């Protein structure tokens, strides 16, 4: 909320700006911004003569008396006229970005600038179009040559103070002032500042009318409602004083009646509403809508209010969305003659719901949602009525119609003195505690070891012991808590977390980083097109009720669409290789909501680790190698089985990942439809880490097997087989071969010198034994066995 330093000063707070904002900070009200409204080298001038600019239609050449001299100034405003008193920026004044200096405008010398309010730094949407487009016409009694900063009260500093959600009571000068003086009075030894007083002990005018409007109030929704009729008022433009007050608060001035309500709201925190009484038929009725109804508010937008909305009606129509805004029809206009003043307290929840309907928080709603100080409502009503009657000598006021159902129970909280030290870690003496609470308007009873504090009625946030402790430390100054030099804070507790998921994920992360893959983090919320990719069914996707945009509507079932997007985007910045992975949660909504943490890998483009010259593109076997290396570290084994049913994957180059007879993921080449503009192929894999973790945990740790230092024998073997022959089939020739420690695939060849339907495969076989040194004779026997099996399968052994 915005606060004017001058207004606080008027109320009695005489602190320099640094001390003021530090004090607010200490109390928990952060000053987010300080706007200095002061502008140097402004003067009040009088327009003596206006003639048209010979070469520009919209410009006028003016002679302006600024006291000690008369200046020629070229002005573009349409409301310029002789005799006006205006604000003149002299040479050297800084107006926004513009530094005023003598210039020639279309050939005519101009020695200053006549200013509009917009040019003095008041935002366009808070000004009437007249004030925004035209220069400011001064109607107040001021002298030529005066400094407008002083005489028009323009000189001020505006604090933008962030108020926390629990401190609804501080959303007014009254509230903030009272909080501030608790600190000032606690620290100061001079005379104490008095609490803010709403100066309206009684009506200034005699009640001369009966109130002919009836009141009907649903008391569960409204615990206080007051209404008063005022006859014969005049609706005009507000006085400069009111206007500039509101402008500094960031509120647009409306008219002399409505502005009173707004100003009182800012001062006291109590919202009110003033209706054109002639537009109200018979009564005001506070009720919940029984059926949905149309409503057009002051903002001129028409909305449908659902059943159950808290409204105020007269005999026939809704006249206000209670606590939020009045209806357009019953608003104050320049023709309004008689008004109805309403000050009430509404159910915060209902106001909160109504705010949602209109999609914004009005100033009134902001107060109601956090509960208002109902104890001051009567006073505020008097204040408003008095302010109206002050300005309308001939008006008459009616008797007050009131429904009062408010409860005035004070909250009492007990606090053991020793608890203060426990919670804060520092000692605060009893006297200080009592003094602080008293300054904060609490009634305190000291009971020896503990105290009982009765919270002021407006402190709706006071419920428990810790609330009091927070109050104490706010005023005592939280900065008085030092850190513990011994750092004895290293307390130990029992280990309670059995969840090892984070460690498992970190292990996988580390392995893949070692393998040269980058770890990414992408958004979990994706669009519909993405949600349809790599998912079983988009209907199983978790969908948001009210997404911010369609780009982020579904919680993903697969990480792959996001990773493919990253690769595509990088590709568009000429980054043509990408080897990355992501680990993240996914959700699937079947009968139950199922969470799975998935690992996805993506590889595309040129191998980066090829050195100086030699280049190669990533292929299926590169991504499979990542999986092999990962499983090797986990001491687990996987096998691949053909997968032809995933529409995003090439059926000739994709597979299911099977571990322990369980399908836990897929691997393969992405069908090019999904990255049309790219020339590089994309390979992906995705698997369930929840499943993998379960499998890993079910395995016992690896046991040592004896190793042999006896020499081994290597034999190379090249066989020619049909091109379509699968590797799984080919290697079956090594089943049941003794001493064969392992075989390595060295080469696959299907080029020249070999018939078109064949391929030639070379293995290196390694034979070894743990007990005896092998001889070539022994190995020959084993190799012969391989030859025989190959013959049966129709394989041709080269060089046999």
């Amino acid at each position: 909320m915005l606060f004017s330093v001058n207004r606080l000063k008027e109320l009695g707070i005489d602190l320099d700006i640094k001390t003021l904002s530090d004090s607010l900070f200490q109390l928990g009200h952060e000053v987010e911004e300080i706007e200095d409204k002061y502008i140097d080298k402004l003067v009040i001038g009088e327009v003596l003569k206006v003639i048209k600019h010979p070469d520009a239609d919209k410009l006028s050449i003016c002679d302006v008396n600024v006291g000690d001299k008369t200046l020629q100034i070229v002005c573009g405003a349409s409301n310029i006229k002789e005799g006006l008193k205006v604000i003149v920026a002299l040479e050297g004044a800084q107006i926004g970005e513009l530094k005023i200096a003598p210039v020639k405008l279309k050939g005519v010398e101009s020695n200053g600038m006549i200013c509009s309010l917009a040019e003095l730094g008041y935002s366009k949407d808070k000004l009437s179009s007249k004030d925004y487009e035209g220069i400011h016409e001064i109607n107040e009694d001021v002298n030529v040559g005066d400094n407008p900063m002083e005489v028009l009260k323009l000189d001020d500093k505006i604090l933008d103070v962030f108020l926390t959600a629990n401190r609804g009571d501080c959303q007014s000068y009254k509230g903030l002032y009272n909080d501030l003086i608790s600190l000032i009075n606690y620290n100061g030894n001079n005379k104490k500042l008095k609490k803010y007083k709403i100066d309206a002990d009684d009506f200034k005018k005699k009640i001369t009318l009966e109130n002919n409007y009836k009141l009907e109030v649903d008391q569960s929704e409204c615990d206080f409602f007051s209404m008063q009729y005022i006859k014969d008022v005049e609706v005009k433009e507000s006085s400069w004083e009111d206007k500039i007050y509101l402008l500094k608060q960031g509120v647009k001035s409306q008219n002399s009646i409505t502005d009173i309500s707004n100003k009182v709201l800012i001062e006291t925190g109590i919202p009110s509403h003033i209706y054109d009484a002639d537009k109200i038929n018979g009564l005001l009725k506070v009720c919940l809508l029984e059926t949905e109804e149309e409503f057009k508010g002051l903002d001129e937008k028409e909305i449908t209010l659902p059943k159950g909305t808290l409204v105020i009606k007269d005999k026939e129509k809704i006249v206000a969305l209670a606590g939020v805004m009045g209806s357009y029809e019953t608003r104050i206009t320049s023709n309004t003659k008689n008004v109805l003043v309403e000050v009430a307290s509404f159910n915060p929840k209902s106001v909160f719901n109504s705010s949602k309907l209109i999609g914004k928080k009005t100033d009134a709603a902001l107060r109601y949602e956090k509960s208002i100080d109902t104890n001051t409502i009567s006073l505020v009503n008097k204040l408003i009525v008095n302010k109206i009657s002050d300005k309308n000598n001939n008006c008459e006021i009616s008797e007050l119609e009131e429904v009062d159902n408010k409860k005035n129970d004070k909250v009492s909280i007990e606090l053991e003195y020793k608890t203060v030290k426990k919670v804060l870690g520092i000692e605060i003496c009893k006297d200080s505690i009592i003094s602080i609470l008293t300054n904060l308007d609490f009634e305190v009873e000291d009971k020896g070891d503990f105290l009982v504090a009765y919270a002021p009625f407006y402190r709706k946030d006071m419920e428990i012991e810790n609330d009091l402790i927070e109050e104490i430390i706010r005023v005592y100054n939280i900065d008085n808590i030092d850190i513990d030099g011994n750092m004895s804070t290293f307390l130990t507790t029992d280990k309670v977390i059995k969840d090892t998921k984070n460690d498992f994920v970190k292990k996988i992360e580390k392995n893949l980083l070692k393998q040269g893959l980058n770890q990414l983090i992408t958004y979990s919320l994706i669009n519909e097109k993405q949600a349809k990719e790599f998912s079983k069914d988009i209907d199983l996707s978790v969908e948001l009720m009210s997404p911010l945009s369609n780009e982020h509507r579904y919680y993903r079932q697969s990480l792959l669409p996001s990773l493919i997007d990253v690769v595509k985007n990088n590709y568009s910045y000429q980054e043509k290789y990408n080897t990355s992975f992501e680990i993240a949660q996914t959700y699937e909504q079947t009968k139950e909501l199922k969470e799975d943490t998935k690992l996805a890998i993506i590889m595309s483009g040129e191998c980066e680790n090829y050195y100086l010259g030699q280049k190669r593109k990533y292929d299926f076997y590169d991504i499979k190698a990542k999986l092999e290396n990962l499983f090797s570290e986990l001491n687990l084994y996987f096998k691949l089985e053909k997968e032809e049913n995933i529409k995003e994957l090439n059926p000739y180059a994709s597979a299911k990942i099977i571990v322990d007879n369980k399908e836990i993921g897929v691997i393969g080449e992405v069908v090019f439809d999904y990255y049309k503009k790219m020339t590089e192929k994309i390979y992906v894999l995705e698997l369930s880490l929840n499943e993998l973790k379960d499998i890993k945990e079910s395995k016992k740790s690896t046991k040592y097997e004896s190793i042999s230092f006896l020499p081994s024998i290597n034999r190379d073997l090249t066989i020619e087989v049909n091109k379509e022959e699968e590797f799984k089939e080919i290697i079956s020739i090594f089943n049941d071969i003794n001493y064969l420690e392992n075989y390595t695939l060295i080469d696959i060849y299907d080029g020249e010198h070999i018939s078109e339907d064949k391929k030639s495969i070379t293995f290196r076989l390694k034979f070894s034994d743990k007990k005896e040194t092998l001889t070539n004779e022994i190995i020959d026997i084993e190799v012969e066995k391989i030859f025989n099996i190959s013959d049966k399968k129709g394989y041709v052994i080269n060089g046999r």
Partner: protein
Amino acid sequence: MKENLLNIKNDFDIKVKDIKNEADWNLIKVEFLGKKGYITLALKELKNCENKQEVGKNIKEVKDYIEEHLNNLKKDIDQEKKDKKLKASKVDININGRKQVLGKQNILIQTQREIEEIFQNMGFEVALGYEVETDFHNFEALNLGVDHPARDMQDSFYINPQLLLRTHTSNIQSRVLSTNKNKELKIICPGKVYRRDDDDATHSHQFMQIEGLVVVKKDSDYTASLKDLKTILTLFVREIFGSDELKIRLRPSYFPFTEPSVEVDVTCSQCLGDGCSFCKQTGWIEVLGAGITNPKVLSIAGYDEKEFTGYAFGIGVERIALLKHNISDIRLIYQNANQFIDQF
């Protein structure tokens, strides 16, 4: 004989100059010192000489002279040979190494892991939870009832009236508390959270949070006061930003799940508190929120709030990463451009 020896020496002096490599050297050695070499022959002739002693001495002088020369020469030849061999391996030290590519971790995850480690070293355990969470664990259990005004502070993504994307990782706090009733705890809860914010340079609808929670018995030796909280957070910021100069400042604030609540500012690392454009001349940067666990939260979870107390804090991981690495736009993190990832 004397003349003969002089000739041998002169002859050697001439021939030795022609030695260019090991082969030449071998030939000369054989020619002069070999079985049929001049020196050997001269020694054989010694027996025919009259003054053997003197001649013998002369021969030895010449022999020593030749041997010494040849040995020195051999050393040079060997050295040259070695040099040649070494030179064959000459490299250009400025050409890039033949690297094994290592993966880079998005700076956000790096920062997350760093923060986890700092707290793990202080004895915290890591607890994880669900991103899609019940309204109960995300709000109600944390003292944010259905009508709590603070709920509008964090406008959330609902899936249905009971389920939403968690708005903080305090949902883990709620779950861990309710499954470990009346036990002392010291946990951190990292994870992704979601709020209905439009994405811009400083806001993101998805971000990463690390929540910390300590719960202790009120009558134990250990306390969990604001002072302890300030201490542990001071240790944390010093560790994560790598400077023992840093201080933290607390400011009273409001969160429904803590009471008292504080915002935590840390000394601006750019100006060390003097005030600069980075910290808007305040000398401080806001980094996290914290407070004493609201007794209501403990009691909702089934703890005896009269016997237990604790504190909690919530760290925005993006905020730390952005500050620490001078990153100007949060969206860069989620964009994952190679050029961005490769920098850290």
